[in-house]
Structure formats: C-alpha cells, structure tokens
C-alpha cells in the first residue's frame, strides 16, 4: 500500500473545517467562537500544505503563504482576546448574545 496521498489530507481538512463551522455557529461564549475560528484556520493551512506537497513540491511559495496565514491567525487571536477582555469588563460576560447592541 502506498503512503497517504492528497485526498486523505483533504478529507481531514474538510472534517476539521466542518467541526469549526459547527462550533462558530453554535457556541454561546465568544471564547469558544474564537477557538472554533482557530480550528477552521488550521484546516485551511493543513489543506494548503497538502497541496504544496502533492501538487507543487518544487515551489516553496505555499509554505511562505502558510507562515503568513499562521501569523495572521496569531494576531487575530491577540486582538480577539483584547476585545473579549473589554467585553468582559463592560458587560460582565463574554456571551455573544449579550453583545447585541453596539453602543457602549
């Protein structure tokens, strides 16, 4: 039997993406929503790396792209945590449905 090819990796990425989408849509705590976003981002990066390995292994541009994507994910996490801290101070909870009004 050969080593796992492109399609198994894409299937894992698809499963992770689905789990992340379900989490984003269903969770009530903004912290859990942020963590589900992280799952989706990782599914995307996994897919990207799989494509690099099996479609264009001679070009390393995809890895640069993945590094930039991971960086953006980390920054998004930091900014999101700052927002959560603000929300927690103002309203006493981080539930997304307690932040229906945008006015402070």
């Amino acid at each position, binding site marked *: 039997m050969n080593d796992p090819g492109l399609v198994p990796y894409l299937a894992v990425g698809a499963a992770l993406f*689905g789990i992340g989408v379900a989490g984003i849509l269903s*969770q009530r705590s903004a912290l859990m929503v942020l963590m589900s976003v992280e799952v989706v981002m990782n599914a995307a990066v996994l897919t990207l*790396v799989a494509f690099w390995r099996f479609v264009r292994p001679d070009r390393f541009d995809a890895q640069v792209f993945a590094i930039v994507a991971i960086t953006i994910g980390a920054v998004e996490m930091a900014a999101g945590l700052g927002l959560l801290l603000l929300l927690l101070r103002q309203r006493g909870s981080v539930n997304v449905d307690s932040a229906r009004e945008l006015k402070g």
Partner: protein
Amino acid sequence: MTAWIVFAALSAVAIAAAAAMLVTMSMYRAGLYLMSSLVAIAGLFLLLGADLLAAVQIMMNVGGMMVMVLFMVMMMMDPGGESMWKMKRDMGMRGPGALAMRMPNGPPPADPKHREHYQMMAEMAMTTTQLPWAIAVGAASAVGLGAVAITTAWPLATAAPNSDASVEVGHLLMSKYMIAFEGAAFLIVAGIAGAVMLGKREGAPKAPPAPPSAPAVDQHEHLHPGGHG
C-alpha cells in the same frame, strides 16, 4: 504502511480533539483539547515534509493557545466547568456534555417550576438555540468539501521535495516575499498596540498617590549620594 498508521493516528487525534473541544463543559479542557488538535496537525505537517511549518505551528499556535488557557483560568467564573456539571446532573439532563446545555427555545413557560428551569438554562446555556442547524451546516460543508476533494482530478506531481525547505523559505521570504514579510511584522505591531489599547483599563488610577515626603527624599539621596545630579 507506517505512514498510513501515523497518518491515521494523527488525524484521528486532530479530529477527535477538535470535536471534544465543542463537547466538553470545561473551558479549560476545551483549550487543552484545541492545543492537542494543533499539535496533531503539526505532526501531519511533519508527515507532509514541512518541518519548518511544524515548528512554526507549535511555536506560534500552541504557544498562543497556552496564553489563552491562562486567560481562561484568570477570567472565567468557572473554568473547570464543575458547577455546570453539577447543574446538569441535578437537572437530570441527558446528552453529550455541552451540547445538552442548549438555550431554551420559545417563550418562558407559565408553570413556575418549569419557568425557573427555563430561566436558569437561559442564563447558563453553553450553546445557542441554533445548535441543530449549526451541526447540520458543519456536517454539510465537511461532506461537500470531501466530495469535491474526491471527485476533482488534481494535477498531482510525482516528485518529492528534495531540497531543504527552511533554506528555500528563508530565501523566498527575504527576496520575493519581502513585502509580505514586512507587512506581517507591521501587522504584529499593530495587533499588539491594538490589543494593549483595547485592554487598557479606562478611568484607572493614573499613578499611586505620592508617598510621604520624608522617605522619598531619603530614597532620592540614597540613589544619588552626591545630590548634584
């Protein structure tokens, strides 16, 4: 064959941990589950031959997750989820973990006993009323993406990457993708500044009140014995 076994183990951990993150009642455990999912994905990167990305993944994402777990322990009322478990047990609710803690649907019932239960759930619920739809959309997108992955004829390459990835990526970052690299640096600075600005406590005491004058003078003289600048 070995690669298949490693692949199956890593992807099972990645998917199961991501699912367990949504099911567990404890925020703290959810963070740890996400961390193990990220580590398993780093293992998949290694299996794909992207060593540099595996290292980056562990350093940035897993490290960031660790900070998030610390945040949870500091900020959440009940990071371990113990009171949630107790409530779930007391109410005799069935279903997998947090997915059972769903927001009640519709108007509050008239019966006072049920009404109390309703209000408690409305306050403590961990998932919204949209949970079945969310699961359906997630499953549908996973199945759809999987179908696309299987049915598309990908232009596969037969060659394996032969040169050292970190050297190549370093050269690319410093030549062709210089602007992206610098832009990422700028983005990180902006992100730090934004997070600090958002997290800054408004109307906080600006400085501690000045200490009584005598000790301050002592300290001053202690620091500058000559007293002549």
